[in-house]
């Protein structure tokens, strides 16, 4: 399992949301489409907003705590037919581990409220993560030749006269 951090939540021009998970140890990113409600739920928690009323994920976390249980971690464990699957690992009051099927969005919304780690199975990360292209090196003179020509063509002495 690879530990990941939430790098960003992105909104496309069409209104779809994606959560971008970054490998904590390397420069790999995994993008998962999520619903608007879940995206908002993750955002408000990460940004530390306090809401007037508890929202659904706050309620779920309250239930877990009031039952004397705790969330150990969440893991994005599978991807089938374009859909990611996650599991939430809960330890009950007797110390027994329970693994509960969840959408990644719900699992992440719960993880940010419990301050517990988020993992992605190695296989998923190997197959579906993206590595951003290297930033282009400092611009060579040739690349900005056209801009230099333009600068050279300006008659800056005129500036004061006008």
């Amino acid at each position, binding site marked *: 399992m690879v530990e990941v951090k939430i790098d960003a939540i992105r909104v496309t021009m069409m209104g779809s949301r994606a959560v971008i998970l970054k490998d904590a140890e390397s420069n790999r990113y995994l993008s998962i489409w999520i*619903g608007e*409600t*879940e995206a908002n739920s993750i955002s408000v928690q990460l940004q530390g907003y306090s809401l*007037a*009323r*508890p*929202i*659904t*994920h706050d*309620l*779920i976390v*309250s*239930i*877990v705590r*009031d*039952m*004397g*249980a705790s969330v150990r971690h969440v893991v994005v464990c599978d991807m089938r037919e374009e*859909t990611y*699957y996650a599991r*939430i690992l*809960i330890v*009950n*009051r007797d110390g027994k581990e*329970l693994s*509960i*099927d*969840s*959408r990644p969005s*719900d699992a992440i*919304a719960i993880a940010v409220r419990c301050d517990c780690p988020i993992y992605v199975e190695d296989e998923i990360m190997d197959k579906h993560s993206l590595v951003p292209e290297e930033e282009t090196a400092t611009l060579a003179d040739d690349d900005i030749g056209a801009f230099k020509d333009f600068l050279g063509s300006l008659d800056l002495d005129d500036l004061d006269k006008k």
Partner: protein
Amino acid sequence: MIEVKIESIRISLMSPNQVIILKELDGERCLPIIVAKPEGDAITFKLNHMEVLRPLSFDLAASIIESLEAKISHVLIKDLRNNHFFASLHFQGDSGEAEIDCRPSDGIAIAVRVSCPIFVEDDVMQKASIRQPGASASADGDAVDDVGAFNDFIGSLDLGDLDEDDTNRPA
């Protein structure tokens, strides 16, 4: 506490919000509660036994409740302050009954999944209930009164004109 059932969930054409109508079991009073679309949908899906490919947030809540062997006894709509309803989830904890503060929509979406009763506090029902919306009029004398305005309107029409004035006819 008054036990209620979900009478209907209504959508508005003007806003994305939905209205849940809770009707008392032993009476005609109804409590309308405005909820957001995701919560309204989550309640509708469950009541209509619609299959979802992946668990919704409330399905997750229900499976966590089941896994932790939490016994939810009921959901209570307990208060109305500043135009907001407040609810609570009641369950049997280690040391007697425990309750968790929640929004009514979340409480109801969970209630329909764990099959527990929904209650409304008496004073909330008194403050905010309405008579059943859209109840069909009974076929007694009152019914004629109810449509009095319509009768007046019908009476005011000059139907003799219909044949003579072709310009008012729909094309």
